[in-house]
């Protein structure tokens, strides 16, 4: 059965690679048709990945088997799923040129990992861990989307401020749509991350009573949660909008990626899946 799983994974990788190329091509030659086709190719890739993950879950024993490959695949799956959901609703196809390469990066790194490896300590394996992981990953995937929308907002804003509403600007979504995507992604990203963290904390309180709170990854996650909380507050309560929010979503996201890498490579943590 493992072979069917790896065939599905391969198919998914191929589809995502072609979708990423198609999206970039559509931006390069400024034709929206390529982006349209890429959306369907990406949807196919998402479907294959879903089947792959379902099969894996079905064959795993007692919620275990959370290796690096699974972990990264879920990242790619969550980003793709959220992007596609939004795509079919808002028709802002070119966002894919920013998101699809990122999905591809996750899936390529995932492909390089051992498929059978299990990094979750045996006594921690359980449905609450899976829930914690999936929710936290979904939250982070939404922050990826907020960053992508923010980057596009800055490009479109720059074109319009410099009175250059040409072909490139036609291809990008409107400022209003991008700002709305940013708002939705921030709000739901925060909600998922909060739920994911609560799930993790509750679980940790039972099986890992000592010192879980000092784990670098936990501290990192708490910082992410606070900063995005502040961003969301500024957005909803103070009314920050548009370019300021776009810049902040990008900067904050990049800082967190950087600090996540530092946590991963310089400090020791039990949240070590990659």
């Amino acid at each position, binding site marked *: 059965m493992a072979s069917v799983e790896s065939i599905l994974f391969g198919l998914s990788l191929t589809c995502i690679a072609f979708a990423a190329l198609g999206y970039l091509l559509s931006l390069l030659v400024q034709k929206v048709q390529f982006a349209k086709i890429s959306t369907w190719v990406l949807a196919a890739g998402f479907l294959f990945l879903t089947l792959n993950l379902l099969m894996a879950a079905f064959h795993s024993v007692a919620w275990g088997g959370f290796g690096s490959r699974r972990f990264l695949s879920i990242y790619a799956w969550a980003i793709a799923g959220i992007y596609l959901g939004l795509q079919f609703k808002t028709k802002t196809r070119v966002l894919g040129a920013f998101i699809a390469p990122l999905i591809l990066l996750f899936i390529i790194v995932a492909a390089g990992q051992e498929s059978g490896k299990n990094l979750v300590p045996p006594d921690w394996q359980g449905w609450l861990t899976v829930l914690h992981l999936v929710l936290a990953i979904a939250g982070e995937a939404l922050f990826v989307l907020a960053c992508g929308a923010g980057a596009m907002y800055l490009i479109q804003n720059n074109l*319009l*401020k410099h009175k250059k509403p040409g072909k490139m600007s036609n291809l990008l979504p409107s*400022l209003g749509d991008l700002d709305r995507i940013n708002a939705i992604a921030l709000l739901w990203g925060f909600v998922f991350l909060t739920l994911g963290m609560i799930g993790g904390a509750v679980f940790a309180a039972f099986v890992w009573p000592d010192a879980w709170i000092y784990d670098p990854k936990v501290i990192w996650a708490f910082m992410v949660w606070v900063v995005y909380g502040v961003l969301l507050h500024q957005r909803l309560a103070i009314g920050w909008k*548009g370019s300021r929010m776009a810049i902040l979503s990008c900067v904050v996201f990049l800082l967190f990626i950087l600090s996540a890498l530092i946590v991963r490579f310089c400090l020791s943590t039990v949240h070590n899946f990659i």
Partner: protein
Amino acid sequence: MIILVGLNHKTAPLAVRERLFAGCQERAQLLSDLQAIDGMREILHLSTCNRVEVIASTDDAPLAVAGLKEFLARNGGLTGEETASCLYAYSNDEAIRHLFRVAASLDSLVMGETQILGQVKDAYRQALAQNAIGIALNRLMHRAFRTAKRVRTETGIAANPVSVSYAAVELAKKIFGTLTGKKILIIGAGEMAELTGTHLIGNGAEEITVANRSPAQAALLAEKFHGRAVSLASLDETLCDVDIVISSTGAPTYVVTHEMVQRSLRKRKNRLLFLIDIAVPRDIDPAVDAVENVYLYNIDDLQDIVDENMKNRRREALRAEQIVEEEVSQYANWLKELEAVPTIVSLRTKAEGIVQAELEKAQHWMGHLENGDREKVEALVNGIVNKILHAPVAVMKEESAALHSQDIVAAARQLFRLDD
């Protein structure tokens, strides 16, 4: 043979165009008059404010062209000399090409405008309703529609706006996405501001507020848009509420200042603001453009966009011309085959092919026949085929001079599947 006689905005002054246009108003009568001209087989007539054209299929082109020129001049109450320099006459490929270019809006005053295709379709429907067109023009018109569609979808000829007010609407869409529910403030009462307001409403914008130095004028314009009028003094307050501002007053100083916009932003909770300044001298302080989430375009900025779009259209037109050429040659090939002689030739070729193939198949049992007997069988088969073909060929030859010969030829091509 297809011919086209007419005039357009490039060849005829307005004075001549309006006379001919006026003469073409009674469409039903006009078509029957045109059908009565010597040599006409099928006829279709198109008249818009920029062109009057007659497309016809005929067997005697010089006679038909002369008749049409004479008729158009007379119908407009002009003499042949007065219209001689204005009227053009095309035949065959040139006529087909001209019609396709007209339908694809390559010959329009504003290249790429979409109205013309609707007018061509109307003309076609009218001619169809009066049984003025047959197989050749029918196919020609469908090819013209197809060409127009291809040009519109395969090139960017109609992609970007080429008027200042439409350019403003397109910009508003890029900023807000949808204009539904957006609020507009018009300052001043210029014609351009009004036009832009109309376009914005046409695209979904809802509430219009008009501010003017003269309350009476403000009320007048506000009534037109079913909006409300405010005084210039309350501009500060209004600015907090609207999404799009169009300004075109004759004021010598800035009507909307940097401070005003800055102040409003807090109350607006940083909502996007699009300012369109079409006044000369300018109404809105250019420094406003530096404010976050505020987008200011003046008349020069808009004109630059329009110029750029116009340039793009001309570039796209080159690609459109290629599409037209493809379609012209396809139609011209089809039309050639509608003549009797090539059809008779292909009918005979097909029949000979069948005879040869069948005789080949019969080789295995005809092998034991004497040479003489075999020749007799072959002669018999050929005789039967020739007898069968004799009648259709004769009819096509007899009718080739008649008005509806193309219908018969087309029927023959279909019955014997000569186009497969």
